[in-house]
């Protein structure tokens, strides 16, 4: 086998799996995304057991296992709990040209954070605990990118 390989590169079969999917947001996800698209209002759900407010809204509390049946309006600003600044572009997957930021943001009135992009920030100034506010997209289509990004709230330390 070794001798044979000297004169022959191992052959490669190129492939690309491209499968179409249609993911249903479900009732809870749809109500949330409609509110974001039509009113620019973030909604959370409250667990009747531990009273935790989930944002992104959850249908069930993973700890109490109760149905989170109560909807709560949240603020459109919140606290930056962690973040990173991405420096390497992935040709298909990066949502923005590098460098760009994203982080975990806990909105006012919510007990859990969620993931979103960061924009209009100075990477030397940005820090965990900063107040950040949502900037909405001009064209809103009923997905999480109806929020363009979060940016630091000016004049807040």
């Amino acid at each position: 086998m070794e001798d044979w390989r000297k004169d022959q590169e191992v052959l490669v079969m190129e492939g690309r799996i491209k499968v179409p999917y249609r993911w249903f947001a479900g009732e809870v996800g749809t109500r949330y995304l409609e509110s974001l698209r039509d009113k620019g209002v973030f909604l959370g759900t409250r667990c009747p057991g531990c009273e935790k407010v989930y944002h992104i809204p959850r249908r069930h509390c993973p700890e109490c296992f109760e149905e989170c049946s109560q909807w709560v309006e949240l603020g459109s600003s919140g606290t930056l709990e962690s973040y990173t600044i991405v420096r390497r572009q992935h040709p298909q997957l990066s949502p923005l040209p590098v460098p760009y930021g994203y982080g975990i943001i806990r909105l006012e009135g919510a007990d859990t954070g969620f993931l979103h992009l960061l924009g209009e920030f100075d990477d030397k100034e940005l820090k965990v605990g900063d107040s950040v506010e949502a900037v909405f997209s001009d064209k809103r289509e009923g997905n999480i990118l109806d929020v363009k990004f979060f940016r630091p709230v000016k004049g807040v330390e």
Partner: protein
Amino acid sequence: MGKRVAVTGVGMTRQRSARPDVTGQELINEAVRMALADAGMTRKDIDAVVIGNMDHFEGVNYVDTWSVDGSGALMKPIMKLTTGGTTGSTIAMAAYYHVASGLFDRVLAIGWEKNSESDTTGAIITAFDPFWDRPIFAGAVAGLALEATAYMHATGATEEDAAYVAVRERKHALNNPYAHLHLNMTIEDVMNSPYLSWPVKMGDMCPRTDGACALVFASEDVADDFPIKPAWVLGVADRHLWAYTSDPYLDFKTGEAWFPAMQKSARDVYDRVGITDPLEQFDVAELYLPYSFAGLRYMESLGFCGKGEAPALTRAGTFDMGGKCPVNPSGGVMSSNAIGATAIIRVAEAAWQIQGRAEDRQVPDVKLALATGFGGCFWSDILVLGKEKPEKARG
């Protein structure tokens, strides 16, 4: 309670950046043949097989059936498991459960991956929620970077503290012929390497690797019949808390930036096995540290020291070869990361250490070893292995 279980055979391929000379199932076969030879077994002696990888890294979804030529599983009970980075430790735990149940005496556990065959970042993203994570998430590096930022904020740890972990792991790998990377790096090399996703640099991260590892798990009824000394599995546990990318960094209740899934699974198994002081009691640890900051935060989450104390211990050499509890004599995940094989390799290295077979990376007189698995979804698997046969099975 179930049967006591031991690792009685180990097979591992050399970990390499690419193995174009073999297909996936041929790579699996290399590790299986080594494990069977080590255990003095033939294919006929295998009672059941547990196998796993991350399907989307090779784009083959029926690995349990597709791999039977290589795995030895033809016409035998087999199941496939896929749990992200923890895949290898989940396979080891499932093989352990098979044997502990009393239904099987000799179970083959196989973890493998050919990361060279796909776009690892593209494939990893398919593990995340299509509504809330995928439009924003940028792959494993940036996901880990969120953890690193939260840890540094909570403790005041620095990027240089993390660099000490990266250098240690690469130095240890120089003693391990199975390791993919053999890099004699300095702190400056790590600090000067380019940022992938701040605060994580190239020198902080694991590579992408091709490799396979197979273990034989045997019951107490047959464990003494093998040519090598058994490495006993004293206890295993796992915990998981992830639904979305924002979940694992901060404990919902306490707001603390540690790793509750790892803390709780460690505490669970420590209580059963009788570990009260991990740093004193473990002779060696083979931990799934996918990047440098993990070598700080996870030592604290595993109870080796208090919160914020890992940087000083790391700088003092506590976890170096010759230190109080060497971590990753193999060079760990930062030196080789064939993802579906990575966590079972931790168990294999722990078994070799207990059996005194770790060659140039052997820690003297190992009686108790810790092995862990970590998943990109912050899944946490813990296994404790020991030299002495336990008095009874402790789960």
